């Protein structure tokens, strides 16, 4: 009987320690989601080439092949990789708030389409009248890997990717992006 008690107590101790480790691990995975997304978005070996990522993106073209008005210098840029046909993009209720919070901080916002045929109706765009980029150069594409819509990418004034979020934004995404922007400005 005494042996059984010792065994159960021992197993209980192991379970408590194990669960503690797993909880820390899970917390780390969740709290580092933007960093993990940023690492996954950056294509290995693709950092070369001329020009900053913001200026390369700003040279992208609209659905009709004309230039889009994306400010290419002096302001950070938030890109939303999304499409009209993506259900998750439509259901992402955090995006309008993130875009507005970024706009108030002087961040330019643009939408990047997976395909030109999946462009948004300008009236349905959030924020309204935000530029839609349908065609980008390989120089820009060589730097990033876009796997899911929606994906949000935040570039600083120097054109460096400082924050990203794969999939639908989470309630803490706004605070996380603002914090990164603030830290980067220091």
């Amino acid at each position, binding site marked *: *009987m005494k042996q*059984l*008690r010792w065994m*159960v*107590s021992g*197993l*209980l101790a192991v*379970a*408590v320690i*194990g*669960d503690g480790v*797993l*909880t820390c*691990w*899970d917390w780390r*995975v969740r709290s580092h989601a933007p960093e*993990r997304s940023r690492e*996954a978005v950056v*294509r290995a070996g693709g950092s070369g*080439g*001329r020009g900053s990522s913001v200026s390369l993106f700003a040279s*992208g*073209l609209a659905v*009709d*092949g004309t230039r889009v008005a994306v400010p290419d210098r002096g302001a950070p840029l938030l890109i939303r*990789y999304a499409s009209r046909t993506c259900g998750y993009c439509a259901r992402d209720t955090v995006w309008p708030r993130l875009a507005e919070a970024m706009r108030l901080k002087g961040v330019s916002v643009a939408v*990047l*389409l*997976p*395909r*030109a*045929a999946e462009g948004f109706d300008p009236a349905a765009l959030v924020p309204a009248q935000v530029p839609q980029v*349908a*065609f*980008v*150069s*390989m*120089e820009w*594409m*060589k730097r990033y*890997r*876009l*796997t*899911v819509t929606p994906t949000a990418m935040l570039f600083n004034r120097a054109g460096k990717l400082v924050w990203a979020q*794969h999939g639908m934004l989470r309630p803490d995404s706004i605070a996380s992006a603002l914090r990164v922007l603030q830290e980067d400005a220091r």
Partner: protein
Amino acid sequence: MAHHQIIVEIVLLLLLGGYGWTLGREIVREERRVAARIESNMLLGIGRYTGVDVTGRLLTPAASPGVDRVVTFLLRADRLGDDLAIWREVAHRVSDRRGVRIIGFCDDSQCARYVGAVAQPLGFTVMMYGEVVDSQAVLNADALAQCLVQKAGSEPFGVVWRGAGLTPGQISQRILD
């Protein structure tokens, strides 16, 4: 009393075990999700290859009537002379076969400027700007030294075109197989 204590401890053990199992599964699932995203990017399908060519025209070359096979590849600015020579020859060899459309994607603006200024016809279209999905598929194939071949109504497949001893004749043959 001792019995009760053991029962409580066993119940606690089961609860903690269940919690740990759930957490562990969630962590593994998240890791797999990240890996699957990168994996799925390597298998991206190809669309209609709409893009803007080196002269600034918006084109969908693969949508022309009669096109049943589209070949796409990356033109590398640092080896532009070699790449153009190979693909000129490949284009010439497959030109007898109607319905094959070859599309190169310049990997930077220098390549686009150079190709845009080439007076001689190349025998294939060269894009300066592409759609994200197509561009990623071309880049992923290039990382494996491949071009992508898409036959009408089927999934694209890669054909190695950069390799020791590979001739334009062999590349053309593989494209047409």
